[in-house]
């Protein structure tokens, strides 16, 4: 136990020290006048500004979080269901899956302006954009998991009389959960980026909009504060998925679980 604590501490302090050094360098660069504060604000000034406008920041963060969660939830659920359907209908999969892979090469965010054109400036086009972005990594990861079930386990279950449905529920689906979570981790990071991007297109609410309006208004401290908050939201959501994975995929040996996102 003590050993483990030591090892996690020894993993944390080097990057923490580098980060602290960078912040110190940044702060001194501004304080000593190497860069103008209106171009790049000092870290302390960013934090002071964030505290000063805290309620507004929180309101915008709430919008962004709402958009991210609806889009991520919708995209992940749609991806999950579609992966299961394509897996159970191999004929359809052969026709549809290559197109999915091709469409992954299109950066989905370029569809942003088109979505705005079609659906206006409300929540709907933004949610649709986030859904589309989250959808693909989940489908691809889940399908790969479903079709890579352990052949020895499959052979055993078939020998004792398991049919297609039993194989799906007892073998393929539980076996694909690890893959599903690797897809969810990618999707959740994408979901924040795409939500912020969607907000840039119609900058009324949300951190993305607040950030772009602040930079247009020459308030760099506010832009940086918004950016900082976006990073924090993204990290928190990623952490939430990792936590859920530990809770759901609890059969794995500890050593593997610890290095799963390395």
């Amino acid at each position, binding site marked *: 136990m003590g050993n483990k604590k030591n090892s996690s501490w020894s993993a944390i302090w080097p990057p923490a020290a580098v980060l602290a050094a960078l912040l110190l360098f940044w702060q001194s660069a501004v304080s000593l006048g190497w860069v103008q504060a209106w171009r790049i604000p000092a870290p302390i000034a960013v934090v002071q500004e964030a505290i000063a406008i805290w309620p507004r920041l929180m309101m915008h963060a709430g919008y962004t979080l709402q958009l991210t969660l609806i889009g991520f939830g919708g995209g992940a659920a749609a991806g999950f269901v579609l992966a299961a359907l394509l897996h159970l209908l191999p004929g359809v999969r052969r026709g549809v899956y290559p197109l999915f892979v091709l469409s992954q090469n299109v950066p989905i965010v370029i569809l942003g302006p088109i979505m705005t054109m079609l659906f206006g400036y409300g929540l709907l086009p933004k949610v649709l954009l986030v859904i589309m972005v989250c959808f693909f990594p989940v489908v691809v990861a889940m399908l790969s998991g479903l079709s890579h079930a352990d052949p020895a386990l499959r052979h*055993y279950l078939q020998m*004792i009389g398991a049919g297609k449905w039993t194989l799906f529920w*007892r073998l393929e689906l539980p076996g694909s959960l690890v893959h599903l979570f690797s897809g969810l981790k990618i999707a959740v990071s994408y979901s924040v980026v795409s939500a912020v991007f969607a907000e840039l297109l119609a900058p009324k609410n949300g951190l993305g909009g607040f950030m772009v309006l602040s930079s247009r208004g020459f308030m760099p401290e506010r832009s940086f504060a918004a950016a900082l908050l976006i990073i924090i939201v993204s990290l928190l959501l990623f952490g939430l998925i990792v936590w859920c994975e530990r809770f759901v995929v609890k059969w794995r040996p500890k050593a593997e679980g610890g290095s799963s996102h390395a």
Partner: protein
Amino acid sequence: MLDVKGISKSFGAGSTAKEVLSGLSLSVADGEFVSLIGPSGSGKSTLFSLIGGLQTPSSGRIAVGGEDITGKTGHIAYMPQQASLLPWRTVSGNIELALRIAGHGDKASIKATAQKWLEAVGLGEYCNAYPHVLSGGMAQRVSFLRALLSPQPLMLLDEPFGALDALTRLQMQQWLLSIWEKHRRSVLLITHSIEEALQLSDRVLVLSASPGTIVDEIIVPFERPRREDLWTDNRWSELKGRIYNGLQGAGGGV
């Protein structure tokens, strides 16, 4: 119990067709332990897939307890070479799942059965553990229990101890014997080990290389319960020699 009559199986068609099994017949009586020993490429795995119903023979019939099961799955209990425990189900959960797939409806009673047996074989503390904490030998014990507790009357054991080290393998053979001699079931065992076949079975069938067909049948004369030091018996080396020669004649080493 098990009747395999004139089974042939070929893969491919036309001039490239390869016959893996040719006119093979065998039977296992109620409560009899039969071993199948043969060189690589004698179609042992194919035979098990046929009995298990995963493949259908090119010709011939397979019956269990008088019922024709040719090409039908779910009529056998099975213990594969790898323990094949689902990693996301507990040790007890793995046994319960096999019984449920075999058609057992009563969840509570199968759970109680699984736990009672795990305790009886000294694995009680692993009931609710996930399989990754088990050693290779322990995992194979669970795998054997799972097959033994399944309601199907015939057990197919597919080189069950092939992946274990020599010492564990000997212990597992003794362990399996001690349980099987108290709870007799019809067993068909595939093995590469002449000693294992002689130690465990009532009858040994020697298979030839491709196409596989039975070239010798040995009725093992040792009384049950089997002694651990059977190799001190004069008949042991004589039978070993006979099986060895059969395998040599059958084309290829063990």
